[in-house]
């Protein structure tokens, strides 16, 4: 099956001695051998270590745990998946998926103007400012970013102080009094969890949107204007549809990362559990590897469906 991408001419005749040269010639004549030699180490590493571990985990989700002894019964059963459907566990799944969806929607709204400006209007020095302005937060330490929000959202922190200085503290208190989103302080409320998720994953939404906007040819916008469209009509009917694959590509990241995270809800928010935290606790303190594995299958299935849908929308070209 293997063949060189470009047909290359035979090497010129010349003095070719030594084992290295002969090996080089042999590989040149048999590109398939070279291909196998190149691919073997990465495939072995990823295939054995990563895929092997992944399948071992999936296999264990079909085992069950003996309720009395706590020993794992190694017989194939769907009992563990049945446990996923208890109201408490369904509640965890519902909460996680809802949060992931809200975070994704909010990230798209906040990211779009940044990406749009960076792609259409930023030139020269501003281009560099926007590039680094997105890259630095993206690559900064995840835990430091979470920590900074603990500082911001604390009752004695900067947000309370800022709202107090402009006389809007009553607004924060009214919000915290709301059931479902409020709490004792922002750092122990679902709103806090949401804000941290939004902050930490936002750059993952900006980059693909920017990439898709940069590929929109200017001539299309000019054509739209020539045909009589006002700027807002051009935006609605030309720019926005062309940016959608980028938005969907970004949503893959924000959705998947929120689904699997177990550290943010642990540090900022209520004690309500998310899928990631449930997986962590079931495999750790509870020692219930089968249930943890079954829980881990939930984000895999959701992401599988999501990726299938995203591929149909052409989002992979925007990655």
């Amino acid at each position, binding site marked *: 099956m293997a*063949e060189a*991408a470009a047909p290359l001419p035979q090497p010129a005749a010349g*003095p070719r001695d030594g084992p290295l040269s002969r090996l080089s010639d042999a590989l040149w004549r048999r590109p398939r051998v070279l291909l196998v030699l190149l691919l073997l180490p990465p495939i072995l*590493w*990823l295939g054995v270590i990563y*895929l092997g571990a992944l399948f071992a985990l999936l296999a264990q989700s079909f085992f069950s745990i003996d309720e009395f002894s706590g020993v794992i019964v190694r017989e194939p059963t769907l009992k563990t998946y049945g446990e996923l459907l208890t109201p408490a566990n369904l509640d965890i799944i519902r909460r996680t998926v809802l949060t992931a969806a809200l975070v994704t929607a909010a990230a798209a709204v906040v990211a779009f103007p940044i990406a749009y400006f960076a792609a259409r209007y930023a030139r020269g020095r501003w281009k560099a400012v926007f590039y680094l302005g997105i890259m630095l937060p993206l690559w900064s330490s995840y835990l430091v970013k979470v920590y900074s929000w603990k500082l911001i959202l604390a009752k004695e922190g900067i947000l309370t102080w800022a709202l107090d200085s402009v006389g809007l503290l009553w607004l924060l208190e009214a919000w915290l009094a709301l059931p479902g989103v409020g709490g004792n302080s922002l750092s122990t409320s679902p709103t806090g969890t949401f804000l941290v998720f939004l902050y930490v994953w936002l750059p993952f939404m900006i980059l693909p949107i920017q990439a898709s906007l940069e590929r929109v040819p200017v001539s299309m*916008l000019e054509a739209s204007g020539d045909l009589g469209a006002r700027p807002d009509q051009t935006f609605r009917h030309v720019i926005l549809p062309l940016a959608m694959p980028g938005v969907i590509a970004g949503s893959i990241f924000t959705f*998947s990362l929120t689904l699997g995270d177990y550290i943010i809800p642990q540090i900022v928010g209520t004690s309500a559990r998310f899928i990631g935290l449930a*997986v962590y606790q079931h495999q750790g303190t509870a020692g219930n590897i089968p249930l943890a594995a079954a829980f881990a299958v939930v984000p895999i299935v959701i992401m599988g469906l999501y990726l299938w849908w995203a591929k149909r929308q052409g989002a992979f070209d925007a990655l």
Partner: protein
Amino acid sequence: MTGQPAPLWLKLAAGAGLLFLHVPLLLIFAYAFTTEEQSYQWPPPGLTLRWFEVAWNRPDVWQALSLSLRVAAISTAIALVLGTLCAAAMARFRFFGREAISLLVILPIALPGIITGISLRSAFNLADIPFSFWTIVLGHATFCVVVVYNNAVARFRRTSASLIEASMDLGANGFQTFRHVILPNVATALLAGGMLAFALSFDEVIVTTFTAGQQQTLPIWMLEELVRPRQRPVTNVVAMVVVLVTFLPILAAYYLTRGTDTVAGQGK
């Protein structure tokens, strides 16, 4: 591109977005100097350099830092070799299963980290492998491959095949061509990819919590401090140093790949 100035609402929204991204990071710098020990009070009641000295004299911080650096160095070295080999094969050959391999490389980063983590942990348990320095490296190298791969494959594609042919025509064998023609061409991309892989490994916490035994990398140390705070001012100082240290490779990677099509940090 349109030559018209941006509308005001767009400038404001984009500016506000950038501020939203950076204010939290700047705040970390302010808190490193606060005299407040018990709470997260703002504005800081006073400023001091005392906590830098306290943090400097903490052996647990140094041990965690040293472990993180060693893990990141070895994981990056492994990822450089595996990622470059894979990129070379993918850029040069068309073959059956090519799509599957590109999916395999991306998978460790596309699936949530907790799945990679728990898979590796249960595999180590099944195989009776004790947790050690090397189990951490195993996990890190796996997800670092994709970063090197992304940077290398873009550069390989742009390295013209005629350069390689010319080298061969002039009598160089495959290894000489690799050493004198291919390597200088891809070197900066590899350096950029390596630095990003290093940053990724240095910062990783989710997979590490599953693959580390009693050992603490710096992010694990940080996580412990966040969940069970012992000395908040020391955490503030360490957080600031971590931000500074991760900025350097990003800036360096930016300058190395500037002017090329590679988006260095794409697809973290």
